[in-house]
């Protein structure tokens, strides 16, 4: 028996990752299609054309030009600033494997997004194992991340935020490796992934800043650290070199292009966001926007573990701040490598959190842009569990702890099943039914394809006239249907009153409470509402 359990423990990480892969492969077709996917696909072809022209690859140039011209975008103004780390490989795969059927193209992209996520989880395991040196804790951290519904719901269709999330974790892993051994190999990997992080999302730029900041603090603590300045210079040199090399956007005018990108960040995303029952300009949301979203859409167990873990960590560094200069043989904020890693994570978290609240040019789509903050939630949750395990401080409450934890995990898993495939719109039990109505639901437009499939089943007419009563490009989903269903659907663009059905995912580009744009003619009556856990995903109106 002991042999079996020790073998299970030995191979537990393989079991976990194989299980996750099988689950992903089994369910990846269940998810809807994100409104931004056509845009990111277009971005991939744009850069493939650019690169194939540069390297004289005629076949790629011709096929990608054709594909780019047939791509339509809707929500985001066109921009060439998007990094290439996901979109370019996706475009190459599409051409290499001659994937031409629209639904197959998006399924391939969903699978690729999942593999990026899988890579991120593998590195999360490595990072947690590196820090806490406990296989079970590291695996439990990965498990907590996977069962975070808002993350689980995104791992197939949100190529942008999930890719950034994974690259972010890999970057932090190489920082940890650099702390363990400050050699050229680790520094180069750290700089490479820091640069990819920056090109994927501009927040990535905070990582090199914090790296320099931590180095400055170490010099302030111990003068001998000055000898490591060459490593910082080396890191910065490779960081800028890799940033330039892998981001074609910078090739022609690097400095000017970079600053133009940073100064034009606010062009992305919608103008309005529905938050707490009111419509806000996305540039003028209250400072409470992000904390409230995190609080209402993160599982309660994660929140409890995170707050306790963060409290312990905060307390530790606050005490160290008040005791600087007392122990001259140690660094001011850390006494060993693990504390240095924790300090880096602590400063990084505070910087991201404060910057996200006060300096972010826009807030929209819930908090999907900041989903990478889930890394910190998991890190501090595991930090707490490590203290719990190491110091046995709460051992007398062990049974209560295990019972409560298991119950909350089971509830969480149940919610993942309940919401499937709309886990992206999960709310925890801290928020009432009425309050859920006051926040955005299907901002990614995942329900469009389900609605079209459903309506073609319900209505047998040869032509089904459909109009959209929200800010959503339903016509994009039409091409994903089989041809016999696609031809039966007629999307009405000009006059909604001519439609038989109206579809709405309740996402609006105007203040729907004041504007007449989405006011319905009295002949339309509610036909169906698709509600999951009191969250309205979409609604259908039918003409009487």
């Amino acid at each position, binding site marked *: 028996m002991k042999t079996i359990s020790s073998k299970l423990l030995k191979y537990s990480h393989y079991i976990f990752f194989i299980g996750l892969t099988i689950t992903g492969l089994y369910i990846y077709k269940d998810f809807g299609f994100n409104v931004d996917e056509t845009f990111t696909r277009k971005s991939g072809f744009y850069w493939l054309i650019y690169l194939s022209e540069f390297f004289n690859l005629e076949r790629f140039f011709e096929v990608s030009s054709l594909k780019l011209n047939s791509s339509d975008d809707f929500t985001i103004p066109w921009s060439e600033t998007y990094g290439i780390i996901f979109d370019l490989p996706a475009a190459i795969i599409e051409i290499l494997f001659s994937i031409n059927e629209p639904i197959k193209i998006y399924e391939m992209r969903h699978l690729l997004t999942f593999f990026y996520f899988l890579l991120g989880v593998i590195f999360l395991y490595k990072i947690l194992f590196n820090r806490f040196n406990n296989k079970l804790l590291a695996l439990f951290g990965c498990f907590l991340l996977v069962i975070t519904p808002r993350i689980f719901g995104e791992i197939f269709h949100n190529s942008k935020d999930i890719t950034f999330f994974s690259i972010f974790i890999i970057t932090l892993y190489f920082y940890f490796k650099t702390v363990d051994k400050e050699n050229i190999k680790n520094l180069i990997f750290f700089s490479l992934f820091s640069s990819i992080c920056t090109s994927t999302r501009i927040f990535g730029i905070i990582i090199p800043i914090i790296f320099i900041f931590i180095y400055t603090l170490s010099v*302030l*603590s111990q003068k001998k650290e000055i000898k490591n300045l060459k490593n910082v210079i080396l890191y910065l040199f490779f960081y800028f070199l890799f940033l330039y090399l892998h981001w074609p956007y910078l090739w022609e005018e690097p400095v000017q292009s970079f600053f133009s990108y940073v100064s034009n960040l606010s062009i992305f995303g919608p103008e309005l966001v529905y938050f707490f029952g009111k419509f*806000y*300009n996305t540039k*003028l949301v*209250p*400072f409470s926007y992000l904390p409230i979203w995190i609080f209402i859409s993160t599982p309660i167990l994660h929140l409890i573990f995170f707050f306790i873990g963060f409290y312990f960590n905060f307390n530790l560094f606050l005490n160290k*701040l008040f005791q*600087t*200069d007392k122990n001259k043989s140690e660094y*001011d904020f850390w006494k060993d490598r693990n504390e240095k890693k924790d300090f880096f994570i602590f400063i990084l978290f505070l910087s991201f959190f*404060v910057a996200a609240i*006060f300096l972010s040019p826009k807030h929209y789509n819930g908090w999907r842009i900041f989903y990478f903050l889930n890394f910190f939630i998991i890190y501090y949750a595991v930090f707490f569990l490590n203290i719990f395990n190491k110091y046995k401080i709460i051992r007398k409450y062990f049974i209560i702890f295990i019972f409560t934890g298991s119950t909350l995990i089971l509830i969480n898993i149940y919610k993942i099943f309940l919401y499937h495939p709309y886990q992206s719109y999960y709310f925890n039990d801290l928020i009432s039914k009425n309050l859920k109505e006051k926040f955005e639901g299907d901002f990614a437009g995942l329900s469009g394809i389900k609605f079209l499939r459903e309506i073609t089943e319900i209505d047998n007419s040869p032509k089904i006239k459909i109009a959209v009563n929200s800010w959503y490009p339903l016509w994009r989903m039409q091409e994903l249907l089989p041809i016999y269903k696609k031809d039966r659907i007629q999307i009405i663009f000009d006059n909604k009153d001519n439609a038989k059905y109206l579809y709405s995912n309740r996402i609006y580009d*105007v*203040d729907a409470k*004041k*504007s*007449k744009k989405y006011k319905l003619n009295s002949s339309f009556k509610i036909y169906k509402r698709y509600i999951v856990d009191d969250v309205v995903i979409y609604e259908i109106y039918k003409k009487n």
Partner: protein
Amino acid sequence: MKIFIYKSLIVFILFFLGFHLTFNYVQRSIERKLYNLTSQENIETLKNSARNSINEILKKDDLINTDDEILLKTLIEKIKKEIYN
């Protein structure tokens, strides 16, 4: 020197937070009010409200009460007198 740098950092952080939680908070609230006031939807709402008010007034038999009628009549006569004399 080191302690001075740490203290300066803390002061900077507190100043940054203080600035955003006071000045920037007020500025953002004012900007939000201005945005709401001048938004297309608000203008539309105001126009509709004005239309409704005019319609309500037009439904009434007497627009002005007797006292106001006398007052206005006297005022107009006085103005006329001053202009033509």
